[in-house]
């Protein structure tokens, strides 16, 4: 009951503030800054504003605050280096509050009131889907830093995280190469796990793998003894885990209690990075597998410098993770695109995007112009007792993004 009441209060509040935003932008329209082409960003002064749109409160805060921190780190570095096209960057932060309508409202505010040149943020697919029409209508750019379920390609979003063929498909390839013939699917009950599992089932069918079961628990659920029993009884070779957030804590505790271990039946997770390992407790996750494009332990001078700079700014005990690295990289990629375009104009930036490269902590990444995704190297990792993830396999070279899985025959039935 208590969950629904605040929405009733929130609805008029949102409507009221939306009306205020609209009237404010109406006032500006008269001055001619907003045209039929969309909302023009303000690039007149010595500084340009960029929007930071993350949840600083609510259930997603634990993850999204770390992304905000790494975006700020990248902005500080760029400003120390002289800025972009001679202008310093001024970040304008807004709190999405883990609430999808709030994300849409704040996106509108950043674009129309602050007149930012680009926005960085969002985490859940639900928040991305909520802001997508706002950015498309205003013709303003969003840089999205998290891995997601694919099957999307907005002309005004740059996807800096992995799409399916850069994370889930390589994880399945890895399981296959290890001789795993049957898998069990466990996920949270919302869009990302259900879409991801559709892809996994299509892959399994084409590759002679058996899917022995598929179970979903409501987001935030903490009762996993039945699912653990089902997984145990199925005797699968491996478990593919798309649970999100705190449910992982309960799931892995129950998994261990049921006597299941990584050598017996490994769990591959796609939503557990260093930050989550720390909060679940490494003792429950030891030797389990993850699939990402970056780990804190990824080799390379650029990553050593990134980890060092992050810890110096935010504390020795703070780990770095894949979404943080993607967010940090997306800011630097944006700078490179703007400098190539010699303009902050979104259309010119988009036109210049193809082939832009950046030596990121995960290795050199390249922007794919047509899909507005990034070429990324897939990495399978094993969780250690110290909470860090050690890479045990990688794809060797960056994988070309394929959000609609057009290059895979088995995926032809997916939409």
């Amino acid at each position: 009951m208590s969950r629904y009441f605040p929405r009733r209060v929130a609805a008029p509040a949102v409507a009221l503030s939306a009306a205020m935003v609209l009237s404010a932008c109406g006032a500006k329209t008269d001055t001619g800054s907003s045209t039929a082409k969309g909302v023009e960003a303000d690039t007149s002064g010595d500084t340009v504003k960029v929007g930071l749109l993350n949840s600083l409160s609510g259930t997603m805060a634990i993850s999204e605050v770390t992304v905000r921190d790494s975006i700020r780190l990248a902005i500080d570095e760029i400003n120390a280096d002289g800025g972009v096209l001679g202008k310093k960057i001024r970040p304008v932060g807004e709190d999405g509050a883990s609430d999808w309508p709030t994300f849409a409202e704040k996106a509108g505010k950043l674009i129309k009131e602050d007149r930012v040149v680009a926005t960085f943020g969002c985490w859940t697919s639900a928040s991305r889907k909520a802001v997508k029409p706002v950015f498309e209508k205003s013709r303003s750019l969003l840089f999205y830093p998290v891995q997601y379920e694919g099957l999307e390609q907005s002309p005004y979003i740059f996807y800096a995280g992995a799409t399916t063929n850069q994370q889930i498909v390589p994880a399945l390839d890895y399981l296959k190469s290890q001789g795993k013939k049957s898998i069990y699917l466990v996920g949270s009950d919302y869009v990302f796990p259900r879409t991801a599992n559709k892809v996994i089932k299509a892959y399994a069918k084409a590759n002679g793998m058996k899917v022995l079961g598929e179970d979903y628990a409501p987001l935030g659920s903490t009762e996993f003894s039945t699912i653990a029993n089902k997984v145990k009884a199925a005797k699968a070779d491996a478990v593919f885990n798309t649970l999100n957030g705190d449910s992982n804590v309960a799931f892995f505790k129950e998994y261990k209690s049921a006597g299941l271990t990584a050598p017996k039946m490994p769990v591959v997770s796609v939503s557990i990075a260093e930050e989550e390992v720390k909060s679940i407790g490494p003792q429950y996750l030891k030797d389990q597998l993850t699939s990402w494009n970056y780990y804190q332990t990824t080799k390379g001078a650029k990553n050593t410098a990134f980890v060092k700079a992050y810890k110096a700014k935010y504390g020795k005990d703070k780990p770095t993770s894949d979404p943080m690295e993607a967010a940090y990289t997306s800011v630097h990629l944006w700078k490179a695109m703007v400098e190539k375009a010699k303009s902050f104009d979104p259309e010119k930036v988009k036109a210049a995007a193809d082939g832009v490269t950046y030596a990121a902590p995960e290795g050199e990444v390249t922007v794919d112009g047509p899909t507005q995704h990034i070429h990324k190297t897939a990495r399978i990792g094993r969780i250690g007792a110290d909470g860090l993830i050690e890479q045990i396999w990688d794809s060797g070279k960056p994988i070309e993004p394929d959000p609609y899985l057009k290059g895979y025959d088995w995926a032809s039935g997916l939409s």
Partner: protein
Amino acid sequence: MTVILGQSFTGISIGAVLLLIALGLSLTFGQMGVINMAHGEFIMAGAYTTYVLQKALGDAGLSLLLALPVAFAVAGTLGALLEWLLIRRLYLRPLDTLLVTWGVSLMLQQLARDVFGAPNVQTRAPELLTGNVTLIGGDDPLTVANSRLFILGLALAAVAALALVLALTPLGRRIRAVVQNRDLAEVSGISTARVDRTAFFVGSGLAGVAGVALTLVGPIGPTMGTNIIIDAFLVVVVGGLGRLKGTVITAFVLGVLQAVLEYSTTVSVAKVLVLVGIVAFLQWRPQGLYTLRTRSLV
């Protein structure tokens, strides 16, 4: 075969959790008729007490054992304060009590958020409780988790303690007297106000103990109370107001039902089916499984 046995044990352990979270409520709501929406936040207070003790002491086993009495006292004190400050002014006004205690629950959630931060936290379980016992060996072993056995034991101990207090002690006698006929109890020389406060202390304290047990199952967060309060009320309502026996039986029946349905369908569908079952049951028996027969006119 082991699957069926394993799943039966899962049902019993879900039942034990339900019993623990509903036990305190069966006293405050079932016996005294107070709809306390902040009951879930008392459970949260018990969980955070475990977290704080573990931070301070370091040793997981010692802090868990110590947390049981401390959480009882912390949550009990919160309950007694709530009773003294607000609820006693609102007896016989159930709707006002509901709104007021709901407001208190929101305040307690925000307080937890301010003190402990918005993200959820975890405690470490003692080494002894992270393992499991093998009941049947062989190729297809049946194992039960130590932590679940601990929760089951704790739930049964709490029920036994509460039943003994109600049946044998002077306090229990006075509580039963007030429940059965408040006016008659009062003219017989019982300070009903004091009995109310003590009963509320005990009921809320039991919520604190449930909170300690829940740290072994999942994460601790400001909103954990809202997720369980509905289950707690369901158990008490289906069991029948005012009867401990009803609460105990209902908790285990619902637990096993949930486990069976989860296994044969999915977690989400099982939740729906259990709720539909409860609605149908209450149509047939609106007063619940067991009812308290009194000669009181109210």
